[in-house]
């Protein structure tokens, strides 16, 4: 079902009120919601049950891939592609490969971390409905927002607005698409 608007958003002026509001909303059964704050709030992550993400796994895979590629590249070059015999020393000289293997692990780990961050956050996303709320510009300054989205099964415009009003926010407004 296509709803004519994205959701309703409530504005708070301190982090404690936002965390309390997020907790209450969750207790009321709302699930499709998001909170917006000018800095990371650990309690908010807890209130919205957001603790798990797959970023560490992505970085692990990226790092291991980088390390394996780094080692294999050196093995291929020094043993197969361009072998240099220096006084009969072994071509597969693994101690000398450690550094580049390590650097490639870090490089691929860091790149996959940043790409993973952007991917999991669905960024870059220049447009998002919450930007339609004029007051939302303060979400990057000193205001805290809780948005309950219209796709939530419990969402009912009157009731949800009334619920958000009961949390004593500064202002409740509708978020257009």
């Amino acid at each position: 079902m296509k709803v004519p608007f994205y959701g309703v958003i409530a504005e708070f002026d301190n982090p404690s009120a936002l965390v309390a509001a997020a907790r209450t909303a969750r207790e009321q059964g709302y699930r499709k919601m998001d909170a917006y704050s000018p800095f990371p709030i650990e309690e908010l992550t807890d209130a919205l049950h957001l603790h798990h993400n797959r970023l560490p796994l992505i970085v692990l895979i990226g790092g291991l891939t980088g390390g394996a590629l780094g080692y294999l590249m050196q093995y291929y070059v020094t043993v197969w592609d361009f072998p240099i015999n220096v006084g009969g020393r072994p071509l597969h000289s693994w101690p000398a490969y450690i550094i580049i293997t390590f650097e490639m692990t870090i490089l691929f780990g860091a790149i996959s971390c940043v790409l993973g961050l952007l991917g999991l956050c669905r960024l870059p996303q220049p447009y998002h409905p919450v930007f339609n709320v004029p007051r939302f510009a303060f979400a990057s300054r000193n205001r805290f927002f809780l948005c309950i989205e219209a796709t939530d099964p419990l969402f009912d415009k009157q009731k949800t607005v009334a619920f958000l009003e009961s949390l004593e926010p500064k202002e409740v407004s509708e978020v257009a698409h």
Partner: protein
Amino acid sequence: MPDEIQVADRKPEKIIAPGYTFGTVTDQIATVVLTKRTPVFWIASFGVGLVLLLLFLLAVGVLLAKGVGIWGIRVPVMWGFAITNFVWWIGIGHAGTLISAILLLLNQKWRNSINRFAEAMTLFAVACAGMFPLLHLGRPWLFYWLFPYPNTMNVQPQFRSPLVWDVFAVSTYATVSFLFWYVGLMPDLATLRDRTHNRLARFTYGIMAMGWRGSARHWSIYETASLLLAGLATPLVLSVHTVVSFDFTIGIVPGWHSTFFPPYFVAGAIYSGFAMVLALAIPLRSVYGLKGLITDTHLDNSAKVMLGTGLIVAYAYIMEAFTGWYSGNVYEHAITINRMTGPYATQYWTLVACNIVAPNFLWFKKIRGTPWLLFTWSMIVLVGMWLERYVIIVSSLAQDNLVSSWRVFQATRWDWATYVGTIGLFLFLFFLFIRLLPMISIFEVRTLLPQAKVEEERG
């Protein structure tokens, strides 16, 4: 059973001055960028940077036209200024990563107001450092020969050489430093996007912020990403100067071939890096009125790190001289004596004064608490650390195993022009950064405010 040891209830330390709110912190830092008025200090510093940058471009132009012979590098001192400057610059960069990554993992909150410009310092210092090995190649346009790629010449890099390790270490360091810095900037770019009234600025910051909106979902992933990047950057920063020191230790040149170089180089890097952090922070906080955010505590802590790492460096010099004598190796012995009494004795004793004697003055709170004295001290440290690299490289090469090949190194004016020119490049990039991007991490400073603490009713 003895009484449990009571932990004294310490008062929470004040990191930034009292009286700030989320709004005032945001406005104070963002205004530096968004204002139309540019302070005279900025114009002057940028101007100096620009002039020296032009000198650098001239020096590089002459170098490309005539070749590396315009520098004073002659057999046997083929490294001369170029590698000295490379090691010096890359060392300076290390403090930025230390502040942004290691102090993050150690949960040192005071880093929050100095990490941004320290990371920028890292980035630009690595850019300056990278210039030297590149120009020193002689034919810099063939730099890509350093990377393994299928080519018609059927040759490949020698992966057993520390010089190739250096290529990988430094390019990884530059890439990871940039990523870390950019990820840290995203929320602040969003703040600038929302605060500016200029359409072009809003568009530019908006594109660069990638649509960051401070969502709790994003923040939770973002925090994980910061920790992971810090965890990756920490061993990286230690490895980079270790690999740089391998350039020396893997060789058999007397005065280079020793196992304590890696920790000694890393400590020296952090020592000079913190000196640069102080040299930048002290004038900036005065000019932009940021003394409430970059407080005396920050200067004091940085000075303490400088003192600590300075003592490690001092210990390394003493060990170096001791090993020279104790090894019983005639060449090691000779190079040690040569450094102290030979053609580079002046540089050697100046560096002893700068790096062994000078840091000990930082034990006094009076010096750590007086910004202009601290600024002077950081200049002394920067000079001392440059001389250290100079003495290691030049004195060892000038008088190595074979007496018949000895030759004293003489720097030419183009050596100086290139070196001073990179200082110009650094100032140019750094002051552009100060003008265009927030020099203090706004969102991390917000978390330092007492209002940021969430009070919850526990049922």
